[in-house]
């Protein structure tokens, strides 16, 4: 597990980075409409007919895929040279994402 495990910090980087971008640019894999229990691929708005949309599940789904892809790429890189980079990026990228998301959401508090 130790050999494969070094890919796990890269997952956090890919997931955290994509999540913020997905929210900013409306990139969910799908939109869920809980009032009618329906799914639509990609981003879709709510309406009187289908009720409020939920994009969060779609961001999470794509986030997992992006995280897995980056984790796979991390395994191709030399372990010794990159381990300290991943050790920092695995919390710096999520931190940057959270700060950016907080900045976007400031509209609710103004």
């Amino acid at each position: 597990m130790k050999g494969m495990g070094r890919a796990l910090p890269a997952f956090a980087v890919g997931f955290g980075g994509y999540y913020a971008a997905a929210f900013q640019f409306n990139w969910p894999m799908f939109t869920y409409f809980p009032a009618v229990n329906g799914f639509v691929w990609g981003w879709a708005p709510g309406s009187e007919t289908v009720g409020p949309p939920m994009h969060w599940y779609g961001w999470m789904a794509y986030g997992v895929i992006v995280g897995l892809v980056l984790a796979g790429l991390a395994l191709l890189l030399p372990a010794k040279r990159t381990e300290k980079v991943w050790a920092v990026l695995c919390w710096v990228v999520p931190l940057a994402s959270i700060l950016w998301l907080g900045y976007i959401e400031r509209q609710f508090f103004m």
Partner: protein
Amino acid sequence: MNIALLIIHGLMAVMLLGAVTHQAAAAVWPRRPGQRGLASRFRGVNAAGYTNTIVILDVLTFILGGYIYIIYRIEVRPPLEVLLDLPTIGLFELKEHFLSVTFGMLPAYWYYWTQRPDMVKTRATLAVWLALSVWFGLVVGHLVNNVRGFV
């Protein structure tokens, strides 16, 4: 049924809160030999021993929260929008983002805490992050749960 799920979600979050706070305190401020006070005993735990429990509790709490989120979106948020209670909606949005990004960090957290005892600073950073996210999530969740009494 919804209330039962919400209470279970809250109880799991409280258990998680205890575990991550012990671990974060032990990682950032280790107990030194001879220290015997309450705070010393609180942080004088085998921090790594909490890791698997924290991961399991976090995943279960997150999945249950992801299900309850549907109820929030249909039954709770629309009335808040009508009442223009935007700060409460915004707080819940921040909770959603913070806990989602933290969920994506769990594999890294697990790796450093179980496989890499040499990465002391990264382990401490991730433990503190996890503790902050759980504290924030629990406080905001509690506020949103009680918001009907305030508006």
